[in-house]
């Protein structure tokens, strides 16, 4: 007599058994027993106790996370630092500044870049790698850092396609100055709390 294969039983369990298999199950005690055993194995597997991680992996995850955040901050430090330097050199070399609207934008751009660089310097004082920021301050700082990172991505693209006097570029740099100012404030507030 032909019996159900394990695949037949699996199909019956899933409600997808062939006509033959479904009929066979009703008449064959051996196959009914196999199907019952299958159900029991699955129930036993589901009832197995949870296995717990033998070691705490959070410290390693946290260390990686902090290293990534601080690397990101250092990356804008160098990137914007060299841009600010370029801006200063350009300003010095500019014997005859462009006139009119273009000249005004140019001046605004240089001003924003220099403010950004100054704020970057202030931030170094509050560089709190390793110091625990928690709750609201940490959330705010992380959010600002992310927004500045994203903005820097946009800026890096813009710098390649436009010349110094572009209004969009000025707007982006001014936005960056605003975010940097908030970031310095968030850090400074925290530093006051811990008595620095």
């Amino acid at each position: 007599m032909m019996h159900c294969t394990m695949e037949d039983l699996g199909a019956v369990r899933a409600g997808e058994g062939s006509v033959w298999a479904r009929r066979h199950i009703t008449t064959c005690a051996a196959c009914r027993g196999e199907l019952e055993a299958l159900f029991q194995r699955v129930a036993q597997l589901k009832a197995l106790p949870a296995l717990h991680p033998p070691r705490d992996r959070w410290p390693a995850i946290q260390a990686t996370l902090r290293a990534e955040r601080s690397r990101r901050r250092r990356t804008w430090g160098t990137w914007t630092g060299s841009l600010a330097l370029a801006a200063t050199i350009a300003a010095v070399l500019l014997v005859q500044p462009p006139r009119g609207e273009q000249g005004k934008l140019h001046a605004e751009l240089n001003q924003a870049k220099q403010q950004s660089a100054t704020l970057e310097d202030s931030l170094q004082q509050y560089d709190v790698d390793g110091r625990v920021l928690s709750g609201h301050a940490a959330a705010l700082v992380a959010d600002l850092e992310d927004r500045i990172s994203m903005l820097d991505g946009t800026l890096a693209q813009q710098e390649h396609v436009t010349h110094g006097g572009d209004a969009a570029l000025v707007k982006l740099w001014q936005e960056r100055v605003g975010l940097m100012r908030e970031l310095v404030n968030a850090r400074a507030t925290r530093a006051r709390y811990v008595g620095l």
Partner: protein
Amino acid sequence: MTVALAVPDVIVARAQAGDEAALEALYRAFETPVYNLVRRILRRPEDAEDVLQETFLEVVRNIKQFRGEGYLWGWIRRIATTKALMRIRREQVRETESLDEEPGKPGMHVGANLDLERAFDRLSETSRAVVWLHDVEGYTHEEIADQMGKTVSFSKSQLARAHARLRRMLDEGAQA
């Protein structure tokens, strides 16, 4: 193990804002279900620990992208499963079916002591993955096939083969 995990929305929101304490709370809530899932699939405990760490690194890096569609556990579980399956594929060399066929191997605790958990441990990692994901986690064969990059019939036949082996091992254990 059935997971019925609910994390307060406020914790998720704080984690998405980068709050370290909230990220750690997520880790604490899910470390055991994630570890249990990947440890059931992977043979070596140290591999499971590595996958646990890789999974949460991805979770903390991408939590902002979690939009709340579907449960957080579903989202985390998918990351963990993908990483465990990737590890099996990457180290396919290790993936030998031979272990399944060596009931007499010393130190394997064969005989009357062979309970379901031990029998399950002796399946290949691919078989373990299919059985665990289908029978315990409730994945469909379509979902398993999709995550493994295999066909639905591969998933179905793997499941049937694995159960046939389990049955045989338990049978041999009972008779010894």
